[in-house]
């Protein structure tokens, strides 16, 4: 079981990537706004949590990236998912400002229920 973290500059591809991941059985990913250190240099990096991000979003002076956090069950799937993401991005991840992916081993996780909940998407309460 792994946690896969993908930092993505090409945010237009986000939907396609999430769709591909979910087709592969990696469901219920979490997406966060993030920022690379390059774009940080020319940002309003003041201390204002909400306003700052709105300003950035409006002005598009700095480009926000997306960080996707997902849980992946095994090695093979990790490689498959990474290949797929690379394919969707259509460019070499080694180029600057494209993105980065890595996995962290997970010792324990909420077995079954949480994953199933994401997989089936039923809201029967």
């Amino acid at each position, binding site marked *: 079981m*792994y946690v*896969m*973290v993908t*930092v993505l500059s090409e945010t237009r591809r986000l939907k396609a990537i999430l769709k591909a991941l979910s087709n592969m059985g990696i469901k219920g990913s979490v997406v*966060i*706004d*993030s*920022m*690379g*250190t*390059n774009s*940080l*240099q020319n940002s309003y*990096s003041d*201390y*204002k*949590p*909400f*306003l*700052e*991000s709105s300003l950035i979003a409006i002005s598009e002076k700095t480009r926000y*990236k997306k*960080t996707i956090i997902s849980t992946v069950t095994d090695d093979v799937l*990790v*490689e498959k998912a*990474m290949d797929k993401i*690379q394919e969707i991005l259509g460019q070499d*991840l*080694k180029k*600057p400002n*494209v*993105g*980065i*992916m*890595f*996995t*962290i*081993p997970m010792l324990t996780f909420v077995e079954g229920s949480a994953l199933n909940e994401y997989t089936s998407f039923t809201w029967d309460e």
Partner: protein
Amino acid sequence: MYVLFIVLNEIEYLSDIITKMREVGLRGATVLESMGSRNVVENELQTDSFLASIVNTVERQSKASRVIFSLIEREEQVQNAMKEIQTLLGGDLKKPRLGMMFVLPVTHMRGGELERHIESRDRKRREQQLHEEE
């Protein structure tokens, strides 16, 4: 391969830390906006409306923090980076509200500045070997 997470409550230090990370040889980092749990409880942010959060922000009531993560290749680099960052933050991270750091092992990695760095280093090494053999 490791990934170093730094939770930083004093955002003033952000650019200093990133500069320092470059100095000690870390390749690239990603920054997330975050918020400490104490901050959430004290400001009752879970009940805040959209407008209230703007007011809070303007009045500097709530304080943002940042999470920085960066991939590191070797353990001694991890130790070195942690030591340098701690010194930069005043030497004692145990004080409340300053921040924290932790390191996790990484099993797979692709892309980013680090992979470029590793690849170009390997290439140089191979060329050197060929050169020596000649």
